[in-house]
């Protein structure tokens, strides 16, 4: 076990510094995983609608985040 992990288990999981740091790391991991998976789905021809459905978010949300300013008004399948 690393020093930090040891420290965390010694101190219990109630230390905010440890907990918040973990949340931040997890968010970074999720952002990168999501980008990989969305890119892969788009390359495989998935629609924003289908991607949004599986991610549990709205089509607009996933489109806005991943398609940037491109073709916002274009009606996609």
């Amino acid at each position, binding site marked *: 076990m690393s020093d*930090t992990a040891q420290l965390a288990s010694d101190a219990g999981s109630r230390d905010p510094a440890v907990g918040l740091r*973990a949340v931040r790391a997890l968010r970074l*991991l999720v*952002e990168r995983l999501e980008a990989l998976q969305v890119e892969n789905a788009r390359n495989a021809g998935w629609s924003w609608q289908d991607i949004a459905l599986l991610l549990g978010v709205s089509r607009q949300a996933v489109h806005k985040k991943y398609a*940037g300013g*491109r073709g916002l008004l274009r009606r996609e399948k």
Partner: protein
Amino acid sequence: MLERFTHDAREVVRHAEEQARKLRHEQVGTEHLLLGLLSRPETVSARALATHGITYERVREEIVRTLGDGTSGDIDAEALETIGIDLSAVREKIEEAFGVGALDREPRRGRGGVLLSGRRAPFSPRAKKTLELAVREAVALKSGNIRDGHILLGVIREGQGLGARILTDAGIDMSALRAEVKSAL
């Protein structure tokens, strides 16, 4: 594009890509190509550069000084360990599917604002140009293949990238270097 590249020349390109990934840089630039050229000390280009005092370590330091070392933004594996997530296990699974380094870089905005994963670092326009010029140099010198020396000639001829800038900042006479590489090829 790399079909006619020799083994050494391919290794130069591969090393450039690897270093761009390890430094978390978004693109493979002429500076990474220069580093690639220096990664194989026995090659014509590395020896020519060595006579001018250009070493691998010196170039790497210069690149980090100019572009930074992006590893400070890496996912905190120790923090994840505190909540029971083994990042190395996650990384292994993801790299199986998406290739080495798939989790190493942050997502970035590509052309048209599209959010791209950090899975790949594209070659910068100048690095692409450099490789095109390497091919042209080889053709002009009537070489049947593209060697590491041609890549160095490409870096010199492109002239504007960080790779060339590192060389000129080191006080190198580019036309002299060019002549030396040409005669050694």
